[in-house]
Protein backbone atom coordinates (compact mmCIF):
# COMPACT_ATOMS: atom_id res chain seq x y z
CA UNK A 1 0.00 0.00 0.00
CA UNK A 2 1.51 3.37 -0.97
CA UNK A 3 0.50 7.02 -0.64
CA UNK A 4 1.24 9.54 -3.35
CA UNK A 5 0.21 13.17 -3.05
CA UNK A 6 -2.81 12.47 -0.92
CA UNK A 7 -3.90 9.56 -3.07
CA UNK A 8 -3.85 6.19 -1.38
CA UNK A 9 -3.06 3.35 -3.74
CA UNK A 10 -4.35 0.06 -2.45
CA UNK A 11 -2.46 -2.89 -3.89
CA UNK A 12 -2.54 -6.67 -3.39
CA UNK A 13 -0.01 -7.93 -0.82
CA UNK A 14 -0.19 -11.41 -2.31
CA UNK A 15 -1.24 -13.20 -5.49
CA UNK A 16 -4.95 -13.85 -5.04
CA UNK A 17 -8.41 -13.99 -6.56
CA UNK A 18 -10.88 -11.18 -5.91
CA UNK A 19 -13.64 -12.86 -4.01
CA UNK A 20 -15.88 -9.93 -2.96
CA UNK A 21 -15.91 -6.22 -3.81
CA UNK A 22 -17.60 -4.28 -1.01
CA UNK A 23 -17.31 -0.70 -2.34
CA UNK A 24 -18.14 1.15 -5.53
CA UNK A 25 -16.33 4.00 -7.26
CA UNK A 26 -17.32 7.28 -5.66
CA UNK A 27 -18.09 5.71 -2.28
CA UNK A 28 -16.89 7.40 0.90
CA UNK A 29 -14.87 5.15 3.18
CA UNK A 30 -13.36 5.46 6.65
CA UNK A 31 -10.00 4.18 7.82
CA UNK A 32 -10.27 0.45 8.51
CA UNK A 33 -13.23 -0.16 6.19
CA UNK A 34 -12.96 -3.36 4.19
CA UNK A 35 -12.81 -2.56 0.47
CA UNK A 36 -12.47 -6.00 -1.05
CA UNK A 37 -11.96 -9.53 0.17
CA UNK A 38 -9.26 -11.50 -1.60
CA UNK A 39 -9.13 -15.25 -1.63
CA UNK A 40 -5.91 -17.17 -1.92
CA UNK A 41 -5.08 -20.76 -1.04
CA UNK A 42 -8.39 -21.36 0.76
CA UNK A 43 -7.93 -18.26 2.89
CA UNK A 44 -9.91 -15.03 2.89
CA UNK A 45 -7.84 -11.86 3.15
CA UNK A 46 -9.72 -8.60 3.75
CA UNK A 47 -8.14 -5.49 2.25
CA UNK A 48 -8.82 -2.35 4.24
CA UNK A 49 -8.54 1.41 3.67
CA UNK A 50 -5.61 2.85 5.63
CA UNK A 51 -7.22 6.26 5.73
CA UNK A 52 -10.66 7.63 5.02
CA UNK A 53 -11.61 9.28 1.72
CA UNK A 54 -13.41 8.75 -1.55
CA UNK A 55 -12.87 5.73 -3.77
CA UNK A 56 -11.67 7.54 -6.90
CA UNK A 57 -10.75 4.39 -8.78
CA UNK A 58 -11.74 0.76 -8.43
CA UNK A 59 -9.42 -1.41 -10.51
CA UNK A 60 -10.85 -4.87 -9.82
CA UNK A 61 -14.08 -6.82 -10.08
CA UNK A 62 -15.16 -10.07 -8.46
CA UNK A 63 -13.41 -13.09 -9.96
CA UNK A 64 -10.31 -11.17 -11.13
CA UNK A 65 -6.96 -12.89 -10.66
CA UNK A 66 -4.37 -10.52 -9.18
CA UNK A 67 -0.59 -10.75 -9.11
CA UNK A 68 1.30 -9.55 -6.06
CA UNK A 69 1.44 -5.75 -6.17
CA UNK A 70 -1.54 -5.34 -8.52
CA UNK A 71 -3.61 -2.16 -8.03
CA UNK A 72 -6.93 -2.74 -6.30
CA UNK A 73 -8.24 0.78 -5.72
CA UNK A 74 -7.29 4.42 -5.27
CA UNK A 75 -8.67 6.51 -2.47
CA UNK A 76 -8.39 10.31 -2.62
Amino acid at each position, binding site marked *: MTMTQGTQQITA*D*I*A*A*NVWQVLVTEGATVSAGDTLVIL*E*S*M*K*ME*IPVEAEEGGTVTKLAVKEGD*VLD*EGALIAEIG
Partner: protein
Amino acid sequence: MDSLLVANRGEIARRVIRTANRLGIRTIAVHSDVDAGLPFVREADDAVEIGPAAPAESYRDADRVLAAARKSGARAVHPGYGFLSENAAFARRVRAAGLVWVGPDPDVIELMGNKITARNAAAAAGIPVAPGTTAPLSDVDSAVSAAARVGYPLMVKAAAGGGGMGMAVAADEAALRKQFAAVSAFAARMFGDAGILLERFYPDARHVEVQILGLAEGRVIALGERNCSVQRRNQKLVEESPSPWLDPGVRERMLAAAERLGEAVGYRNAGTVECLVHGAPGAQDFVFLEMNTRLQVEHPVTELVWGLDLVEQQLLIARHRPPSVDPAALRPRGHAIEFRVNAEDPVRFLPGPGAITQWREPAGEGIRVDAGYAAGTKVTPAYDSLMAKLVVYGENREQALSRARAALGSFTISGPKHNLPFFGELLEEPEFVAGTYTTALLTRMRAR
Protein backbone atom coordinates in the same frame (compact mmCIF):
# COMPACT_ATOMS: atom_id res chain seq x y z
CA MET B 1 -9.11 -54.02 -8.76
CA ASP B 2 -6.83 -53.48 -11.72
CA SER B 3 -7.20 -49.72 -12.11
CA LEU B 4 -7.59 -46.78 -9.73
CA LEU B 5 -8.69 -43.21 -10.36
CA VAL B 6 -7.17 -40.77 -7.89
CA ALA B 7 -9.67 -37.95 -7.37
CA ASN B 8 -7.16 -35.48 -5.96
CA ARG B 9 -4.05 -33.47 -6.79
CA GLY B 10 -0.58 -32.53 -5.57
CA GLU B 11 1.36 -34.51 -3.02
CA ILE B 12 -1.47 -36.82 -1.94
CA ALA B 13 -2.37 -37.84 -5.50
CA ARG B 14 1.30 -38.57 -6.11
CA ARG B 15 1.59 -40.55 -2.90
CA VAL B 16 -1.47 -42.73 -3.68
CA ILE B 17 -0.18 -43.30 -7.23
CA ARG B 18 3.19 -44.45 -5.84
CA THR B 19 1.59 -47.25 -3.81
CA ALA B 20 -0.77 -48.26 -6.62
CA ASN B 21 2.19 -48.46 -9.04
CA ARG B 22 4.07 -50.68 -6.60
CA LEU B 23 1.05 -53.00 -6.38
CA GLY B 24 0.72 -53.18 -10.17
CA ILE B 25 -2.55 -51.24 -10.28
CA ARG B 26 -3.04 -48.96 -13.29
CA THR B 27 -3.50 -45.35 -12.14
CA ILE B 28 -5.59 -42.58 -13.61
CA ALA B 29 -5.00 -38.98 -12.54
CA VAL B 30 -7.61 -36.27 -12.95
CA HIS B 31 -6.41 -32.69 -13.06
CA SER B 32 -7.41 -29.10 -13.69
CA ASP B 33 -5.84 -27.21 -16.59
CA VAL B 34 -3.39 -25.29 -14.34
CA ASP B 35 -2.14 -28.54 -12.78
CA ALA B 36 -1.23 -30.23 -16.09
CA GLY B 37 2.51 -29.88 -15.42
CA LEU B 38 2.58 -31.30 -11.88
CA PRO B 39 4.43 -34.54 -11.07
CA PHE B 40 1.29 -36.51 -10.13
CA VAL B 41 -0.09 -36.09 -13.65
CA ARG B 42 3.13 -37.33 -15.21
CA GLU B 43 3.51 -40.26 -12.84
CA ALA B 44 0.02 -41.69 -13.38
CA ASP B 45 -0.47 -44.19 -16.20
CA ASP B 46 -3.27 -42.06 -17.64
CA ALA B 47 -4.46 -38.51 -17.00
CA VAL B 48 -7.77 -36.81 -17.71
CA GLU B 49 -8.15 -33.02 -17.67
CA ILE B 50 -11.46 -32.32 -15.97
CA GLY B 51 -11.80 -28.55 -15.90
CA PRO B 52 -10.43 -25.15 -14.92
CA ALA B 53 -8.53 -24.19 -11.77
CA ALA B 54 -11.62 -23.45 -9.64
CA PRO B 55 -12.15 -26.59 -7.50
CA ALA B 56 -15.94 -26.39 -7.89
CA GLU B 57 -15.49 -26.87 -11.63
CA SER B 58 -12.88 -29.63 -11.43
CA TYR B 59 -11.72 -31.53 -8.32
CA ARG B 60 -14.95 -30.93 -6.38
CA ASP B 61 -17.24 -31.56 -9.36
CA ALA B 62 -18.60 -35.10 -8.89
CA ASP B 63 -20.05 -35.22 -12.42
CA ARG B 64 -16.72 -34.46 -14.05
CA VAL B 65 -14.78 -36.88 -11.86
CA LEU B 66 -17.29 -39.68 -12.54
CA ALA B 67 -17.23 -38.94 -16.27
CA ALA B 68 -13.43 -39.27 -16.17
CA ALA B 69 -13.79 -42.62 -14.36
CA ARG B 70 -16.15 -43.88 -17.07
CA LYS B 71 -14.00 -42.60 -19.89
CA SER B 72 -10.80 -44.13 -18.50
CA GLY B 73 -12.31 -47.46 -17.48
CA ALA B 74 -11.27 -47.02 -13.84
CA ARG B 75 -12.50 -49.73 -11.46
CA ALA B 76 -11.94 -47.89 -8.18
CA VAL B 77 -11.75 -44.34 -6.82
CA HIS B 78 -9.37 -43.07 -4.11
CA PRO B 79 -10.47 -39.61 -2.93
CA GLY B 80 -7.35 -38.55 -0.97
CA TYR B 81 -8.21 -35.80 1.55
CA GLY B 82 -10.25 -32.62 1.07
CA PHE B 83 -12.29 -32.13 -2.12
CA LEU B 84 -14.78 -35.04 -2.47
CA SER B 85 -13.22 -37.27 0.21
CA GLU B 86 -15.90 -36.66 2.83
CA ASN B 87 -18.79 -36.20 0.43
CA ALA B 88 -21.23 -39.06 1.15
CA ALA B 89 -23.31 -38.35 -1.97
CA PHE B 90 -20.20 -38.72 -4.12
CA ALA B 91 -19.24 -41.98 -2.39
CA ARG B 92 -22.74 -43.33 -3.06
CA ARG B 93 -22.52 -42.36 -6.73
CA VAL B 94 -19.12 -44.08 -7.05
CA ARG B 95 -20.65 -47.29 -5.70
CA ALA B 96 -23.81 -46.91 -7.80
CA ALA B 97 -21.57 -46.72 -10.87
CA GLY B 98 -20.23 -50.14 -9.94
CA LEU B 99 -16.84 -48.85 -8.80
CA VAL B 100 -14.92 -49.60 -5.61
CA TRP B 101 -14.96 -46.67 -3.17
CA VAL B 102 -11.69 -46.50 -1.25
CA GLY B 103 -13.14 -45.17 1.98
CA PRO B 104 -15.71 -45.93 4.66
CA ASP B 105 -19.39 -46.54 4.05
CA PRO B 106 -21.20 -43.39 2.83
CA ASP B 107 -23.62 -43.56 5.80
CA VAL B 108 -20.64 -43.43 8.18
CA ILE B 109 -19.17 -40.46 6.28
CA GLU B 110 -22.49 -38.68 6.70
CA LEU B 111 -22.79 -39.47 10.42
CA MET B 112 -19.19 -38.60 11.33
CA GLY B 113 -18.70 -35.76 8.83
CA ASN B 114 -21.10 -33.53 10.72
CA LYS B 115 -19.50 -32.28 13.93
CA ILE B 116 -22.76 -32.44 15.90
CA THR B 117 -23.90 -35.95 14.93
CA ALA B 118 -20.31 -37.17 15.31
CA ARG B 119 -20.09 -35.68 18.79
CA ASN B 120 -23.43 -37.26 19.75
CA ALA B 121 -22.28 -40.65 18.36
CA ALA B 122 -19.08 -40.39 20.43
CA ALA B 123 -21.03 -39.54 23.59
CA ALA B 124 -23.40 -42.47 22.90
CA ALA B 125 -20.37 -44.78 22.64
CA GLY B 126 -19.27 -43.64 26.10
CA ILE B 127 -16.43 -41.39 24.91
CA PRO B 128 -15.90 -38.14 26.81
CA VAL B 129 -16.92 -34.97 24.95
CA ALA B 130 -16.45 -31.31 25.96
CA PRO B 131 -19.47 -29.49 27.39
CA GLY B 132 -21.39 -28.39 24.32
CA THR B 133 -24.62 -28.33 22.35
CA THR B 134 -26.27 -31.42 20.87
CA ALA B 135 -28.42 -29.91 18.09
CA PRO B 136 -27.57 -27.31 15.44
CA LEU B 137 -28.13 -23.70 16.53
CA SER B 138 -29.53 -21.40 13.90
CA ASP B 139 -30.19 -18.16 15.79
CA VAL B 140 -27.92 -16.10 17.97
CA ASP B 141 -30.32 -15.77 20.93
CA SER B 142 -30.59 -19.51 21.42
CA ALA B 143 -26.79 -19.63 21.13
CA VAL B 144 -26.47 -17.06 23.91
CA SER B 145 -28.74 -19.03 26.21
CA ALA B 146 -26.96 -22.31 25.35
CA ALA B 147 -23.64 -20.60 26.12
CA ALA B 148 -24.73 -20.06 29.70
CA ARG B 149 -24.81 -23.85 30.13
CA VAL B 150 -21.63 -24.59 28.12
CA GLY B 151 -19.57 -21.88 29.82
CA TYR B 152 -17.07 -19.36 28.40
CA PRO B 153 -14.60 -19.32 26.73
CA LEU B 154 -16.17 -21.40 24.01
CA MET B 155 -15.63 -22.42 20.42
CA VAL B 156 -18.18 -21.41 17.80
CA LYS B 157 -17.99 -24.14 15.17
CA ALA B 158 -19.70 -24.76 11.86
CA ALA B 159 -21.30 -28.22 12.16
CA ALA B 160 -20.35 -28.92 8.56
CA GLY B 161 -16.90 -27.33 8.83
CA GLY B 162 -13.54 -28.97 8.39
CA GLY B 163 -9.87 -28.38 7.80
CA GLY B 164 -9.76 -25.80 10.58
CA MET B 165 -12.15 -23.53 8.69
CA GLY B 166 -15.40 -22.24 10.14
CA MET B 167 -14.49 -21.91 13.80
CA ALA B 168 -13.78 -19.06 16.20
CA VAL B 169 -13.23 -18.57 19.93
CA ALA B 170 -15.63 -16.42 21.96
CA ALA B 171 -14.60 -15.26 25.43
CA ASP B 172 -17.91 -13.59 26.33
CA GLU B 173 -21.42 -12.87 25.10
CA ALA B 174 -20.43 -9.90 22.94
CA ALA B 175 -17.80 -11.98 21.18
CA LEU B 176 -20.26 -14.85 20.79
CA ARG B 177 -22.80 -12.58 19.06
CA LYS B 178 -20.14 -11.33 16.66
CA GLN B 179 -18.57 -14.72 15.94
CA PHE B 180 -21.91 -16.51 15.62
CA ALA B 181 -22.88 -14.19 12.75
CA ALA B 182 -19.47 -14.48 11.08
CA VAL B 183 -19.12 -18.27 11.37
CA SER B 184 -22.68 -19.06 10.30
CA ALA B 185 -22.43 -16.77 7.25
CA PHE B 186 -19.09 -18.33 6.32
CA ALA B 187 -20.48 -21.84 6.82
CA ALA B 188 -23.56 -21.18 4.71
CA ARG B 189 -21.35 -19.97 1.89
CA MET B 190 -18.54 -22.52 2.16
CA PHE B 191 -20.37 -25.65 3.26
CA GLY B 192 -23.99 -24.91 2.32
CA ASP B 193 -25.03 -25.47 5.93
CA ALA B 194 -25.17 -22.65 8.51
CA GLY B 195 -25.75 -24.91 11.56
CA ILE B 196 -23.59 -24.02 14.56
CA LEU B 197 -22.18 -26.03 17.44
CA LEU B 198 -20.90 -24.48 20.68
CA GLU B 199 -18.23 -26.28 22.64
CA ARG B 200 -16.12 -25.41 25.68
CA PHE B 201 -12.73 -24.03 24.59
CA TYR B 202 -9.53 -25.35 26.19
CA PRO B 203 -6.91 -22.65 25.63
CA ASP B 204 -3.76 -24.56 26.55
CA ALA B 205 -4.46 -28.06 25.29
CA ARG B 206 -2.75 -30.65 23.15
CA HIS B 207 -4.33 -31.76 19.90
CA VAL B 208 -3.81 -35.51 19.87
CA GLU B 209 -5.45 -37.81 17.34
CA VAL B 210 -5.68 -41.56 16.91
CA GLN B 211 -5.15 -43.33 13.59
CA ILE B 212 -7.64 -46.13 13.20
CA LEU B 213 -7.99 -48.86 10.66
CA GLY B 214 -11.40 -50.49 10.35
CA LEU B 215 -10.62 -53.96 9.03
CA ALA B 216 -12.79 -55.74 6.48
CA GLU B 217 -13.77 -58.37 9.09
CA GLY B 218 -15.27 -55.61 11.28
CA ARG B 219 -12.62 -55.17 13.95
CA VAL B 220 -11.16 -51.67 14.40
CA ILE B 221 -7.52 -51.28 15.43
CA ALA B 222 -5.75 -48.14 16.67
CA LEU B 223 -2.28 -47.43 15.25
CA GLY B 224 -1.07 -45.08 17.94
CA GLU B 225 -1.51 -41.34 18.20
CA ARG B 226 -0.18 -38.18 16.60
CA ASN B 227 0.36 -34.89 18.38
CA CYS B 228 -0.67 -32.03 16.06
CA SER B 229 -0.48 -29.07 18.44
CA VAL B 230 1.73 -26.82 16.33
CA GLN B 231 -1.04 -24.91 14.58
CA ARG B 232 -1.76 -21.56 13.00
CA ARG B 233 -5.37 -20.50 12.36
CA ASN B 234 -6.49 -23.90 13.75
CA GLN B 235 -4.55 -25.61 10.98
CA LYS B 236 -1.71 -28.02 11.60
CA LEU B 237 1.89 -27.27 10.65
CA VAL B 238 3.77 -30.06 12.43
CA GLU B 239 2.71 -33.52 13.59
CA GLU B 240 4.59 -36.16 15.51
CA SER B 241 4.18 -39.66 16.83
CA PRO B 242 4.32 -40.77 19.55
CA SER B 243 3.03 -37.69 21.37
CA PRO B 244 5.50 -36.31 23.92
CA TRP B 245 4.20 -35.54 27.41
CA LEU B 246 1.10 -37.70 27.17
CA ASP B 247 0.09 -39.51 30.36
CA PRO B 248 0.31 -43.27 29.65
CA GLY B 249 -3.14 -43.87 31.14
CA VAL B 250 -4.67 -41.17 28.94
CA ARG B 251 -3.00 -42.63 25.84
CA GLU B 252 -4.34 -46.08 26.66
CA ARG B 253 -7.90 -44.82 27.25
CA MET B 254 -7.83 -42.65 24.13
CA LEU B 255 -6.70 -45.49 21.84
CA ALA B 256 -9.35 -47.80 23.33
CA ALA B 257 -12.01 -45.09 22.89
CA ALA B 258 -11.08 -44.62 19.22
CA GLU B 259 -11.39 -48.35 18.58
CA ARG B 260 -14.71 -48.47 20.43
CA LEU B 261 -16.10 -45.51 18.46
CA GLY B 262 -14.96 -47.02 15.16
CA GLU B 263 -16.65 -50.31 15.98
CA ALA B 264 -19.81 -48.57 17.25
CA VAL B 265 -20.34 -46.80 13.91
CA GLY B 266 -19.22 -49.74 11.73
CA TYR B 267 -16.09 -48.04 10.48
CA ARG B 268 -14.14 -49.70 7.64
CA ASN B 269 -10.96 -48.28 6.13
CA ALA B 270 -8.52 -45.66 7.46
CA GLY B 271 -9.84 -42.87 9.68
CA THR B 272 -8.77 -40.50 12.41
CA VAL B 273 -10.35 -39.77 15.77
CA GLU B 274 -9.25 -36.31 16.89
CA CYS B 275 -9.13 -35.48 20.61
CA LEU B 276 -8.06 -32.64 22.85
CA VAL B 277 -5.89 -33.49 25.82
CA HIS B 278 -6.25 -30.89 28.57
CA GLY B 279 -4.66 -30.51 31.98
CA ALA B 280 -1.02 -30.56 33.02
CA PRO B 281 1.07 -33.71 32.48
CA GLY B 282 0.34 -36.08 35.36
CA ALA B 283 -3.24 -34.80 35.58
CA GLN B 284 -4.36 -34.98 31.95
CA ASP B 285 -7.72 -35.93 30.54
CA PHE B 286 -9.13 -35.97 27.01
CA VAL B 287 -12.30 -35.14 25.11
CA PHE B 288 -13.41 -36.20 21.63
CA LEU B 289 -13.16 -33.41 19.05
CA GLU B 290 -14.14 -34.82 15.67
CA MET B 291 -13.56 -37.61 13.25
CA ASN B 292 -12.01 -37.55 9.79
CA THR B 293 -13.39 -40.31 7.60
CA ARG B 294 -10.48 -40.44 5.20
CA LEU B 295 -6.71 -40.60 4.92
CA GLN B 296 -5.13 -37.71 6.82
CA VAL B 297 -2.43 -35.33 5.52
CA GLU B 298 -0.17 -36.42 8.40
CA HIS B 299 -0.57 -40.18 7.88
CA PRO B 300 3.15 -40.63 7.01
CA VAL B 301 4.26 -40.21 10.65
CA THR B 302 2.13 -43.24 11.53
CA GLU B 303 3.49 -45.17 8.54
CA LEU B 304 7.09 -44.56 9.63
CA VAL B 305 6.51 -45.53 13.26
CA TRP B 306 4.43 -48.62 12.46
CA GLY B 307 6.28 -49.70 9.31
CA LEU B 308 3.08 -49.95 7.32
CA ASP B 309 1.77 -48.48 4.05
CA LEU B 310 -1.67 -47.10 4.98
CA VAL B 311 -2.76 -46.59 1.37
CA GLU B 312 -2.05 -50.28 0.68
CA GLN B 313 -4.26 -51.21 3.65
CA GLN B 314 -6.99 -48.89 2.34
CA LEU B 315 -6.93 -50.59 -1.06
CA LEU B 316 -7.07 -54.05 0.57
CA ILE B 317 -9.92 -53.15 2.93
CA ALA B 318 -11.91 -51.58 0.08
CA ARG B 319 -11.82 -55.00 -1.60
CA HIS B 320 -12.84 -56.77 1.65
CA ARG B 321 -9.37 -58.28 2.05
CA PRO B 322 -7.34 -58.67 5.25
CA PRO B 323 -4.44 -56.23 5.83
CA SER B 324 -0.98 -56.98 4.42
CA VAL B 325 0.38 -57.81 7.89
CA ASP B 326 -1.11 -59.50 10.92
CA PRO B 327 -2.37 -56.63 13.15
CA ALA B 328 -1.40 -58.60 16.27
CA ALA B 329 2.25 -58.48 15.16
CA LEU B 330 2.33 -54.69 14.72
CA ARG B 331 4.39 -52.67 17.21
CA PRO B 332 5.33 -48.99 17.09
CA ARG B 333 9.03 -48.23 16.93
CA GLY B 334 10.99 -44.98 17.07
CA HIS B 335 9.73 -41.44 16.51
CA ALA B 336 8.53 -39.53 13.44
CA ILE B 337 7.86 -35.83 12.86
CA GLU B 338 6.19 -34.21 9.85
CA PHE B 339 6.66 -30.59 8.75
CA ARG B 340 4.15 -29.14 6.30
CA VAL B 341 6.11 -27.11 3.79
CA ASN B 342 3.61 -24.47 2.72
CA ALA B 343 3.69 -21.67 0.19
CA GLU B 344 3.26 -19.00 2.86
CA ASP B 345 5.44 -16.46 4.56
CA PRO B 346 7.15 -17.75 7.71
CA VAL B 347 6.12 -14.85 9.97
CA ARG B 348 2.45 -14.06 9.36
CA PHE B 349 1.70 -17.32 7.52
CA LEU B 350 -0.05 -15.50 4.69
CA PRO B 351 -0.27 -17.22 1.29
CA GLY B 352 2.57 -16.63 -1.18
CA PRO B 353 1.93 -18.60 -4.37
CA GLY B 354 4.30 -18.35 -7.32
CA ALA B 355 6.39 -20.16 -9.92
CA ILE B 356 9.05 -22.51 -8.54
CA THR B 357 12.47 -21.75 -9.98
CA GLN B 358 14.51 -23.97 -7.64
CA TRP B 359 13.49 -27.08 -5.74
CA ARG B 360 16.01 -29.34 -4.02
CA GLU B 361 14.78 -31.92 -1.52
CA PRO B 362 16.82 -33.36 1.32
CA ALA B 363 17.52 -37.10 1.20
CA GLY B 364 19.16 -39.63 3.48
CA GLU B 365 18.49 -42.06 6.28
CA GLY B 366 15.23 -41.39 8.10
CA ILE B 367 14.12 -38.67 5.67
CA ARG B 368 10.99 -38.86 3.54
CA VAL B 369 9.65 -36.06 1.36
CA ASP B 370 6.14 -36.26 -0.12
CA ALA B 371 6.09 -33.35 -2.59
CA GLY B 372 3.39 -32.17 -4.96
CA TYR B 373 5.58 -29.77 -6.89
CA ALA B 374 9.01 -29.61 -8.54
CA ALA B 375 11.24 -27.03 -10.20
CA GLY B 376 9.50 -25.46 -13.20
CA THR B 377 5.99 -25.96 -11.79
CA LYS B 378 3.71 -23.27 -10.43
CA VAL B 379 1.91 -22.90 -7.10
CA THR B 380 -1.39 -21.16 -7.89
CA PRO B 381 -3.78 -19.34 -5.52
CA ALA B 382 -6.56 -21.82 -6.40
CA TYR B 383 -5.57 -24.54 -3.91
CA ASP B 384 -4.34 -24.87 -0.35
CA SER B 385 -0.75 -23.90 0.33
CA LEU B 386 0.75 -27.34 1.00
CA MET B 387 3.70 -27.91 -1.33
CA ALA B 388 5.39 -30.83 0.38
CA LYS B 389 5.69 -32.78 3.60
CA LEU B 390 9.10 -33.31 5.12
CA VAL B 391 8.89 -36.36 7.37
CA VAL B 392 11.81 -37.43 9.54
CA TYR B 393 12.26 -40.63 11.47
CA GLY B 394 14.63 -41.48 14.31
CA GLU B 395 15.10 -44.24 16.86
CA ASN B 396 13.99 -41.63 19.40
CA ARG B 397 12.71 -38.05 19.41
CA GLU B 398 16.18 -36.59 19.86
CA GLN B 399 17.49 -38.32 16.75
CA ALA B 400 14.38 -37.29 14.79
CA LEU B 401 14.95 -33.64 15.81
CA SER B 402 18.58 -33.72 14.81
CA ARG B 403 17.74 -35.29 11.43
CA ALA B 404 15.06 -32.62 10.98
CA ARG B 405 17.64 -29.86 11.50
CA ALA B 406 19.96 -31.39 8.94
CA ALA B 407 17.14 -32.01 6.45
CA LEU B 408 15.82 -28.45 6.72
CA GLY B 409 19.31 -27.13 6.06
CA SER B 410 19.46 -28.94 2.72
CA PHE B 411 15.93 -28.15 1.52
CA THR B 412 16.01 -25.38 -1.10
CA ILE B 413 12.93 -23.71 -2.54
CA SER B 414 12.95 -20.53 -4.63
CA GLY B 415 10.01 -18.73 -6.13
CA PRO B 416 6.98 -18.92 -3.86
CA LYS B 417 7.16 -17.74 -0.27
CA HIS B 418 7.69 -20.72 2.03
CA ASN B 419 7.77 -21.56 5.72
CA LEU B 420 11.07 -23.47 5.95
CA PRO B 421 12.59 -20.59 8.01
CA PHE B 422 9.77 -20.97 10.51
CA PHE B 423 10.66 -24.63 11.04
CA GLY B 424 14.27 -23.60 11.66
CA GLU B 425 12.98 -21.27 14.34
CA LEU B 426 10.70 -23.95 15.78
CA LEU B 427 13.55 -26.45 16.10
CA GLU B 428 15.32 -23.94 18.39
CA GLU B 429 12.21 -23.21 20.42
CA PRO B 430 12.68 -24.64 23.95
CA GLU B 431 9.03 -25.70 24.34
CA PHE B 432 9.10 -27.59 21.06
CA VAL B 433 12.49 -29.17 21.72
CA ALA B 434 11.30 -30.29 25.17
CA GLY B 435 8.01 -31.50 23.69
CA THR B 436 5.94 -29.64 26.31
CA TYR B 437 4.18 -27.40 23.74
CA THR B 438 0.43 -26.96 23.45
CA THR B 439 -1.83 -25.44 20.78
CA ALA B 440 -0.95 -22.03 22.25
CA LEU B 441 2.70 -22.35 21.14
CA LEU B 442 2.53 -20.32 17.95
CA THR B 443 0.58 -17.48 19.52
CA ARG B 444 3.20 -17.33 22.27
CA MET B 445 6.08 -17.40 19.78
CA ARG B 446 4.60 -14.61 17.68
CA ALA B 447 3.69 -12.49 20.72
CA ARG B 448 7.36 -12.15 21.70
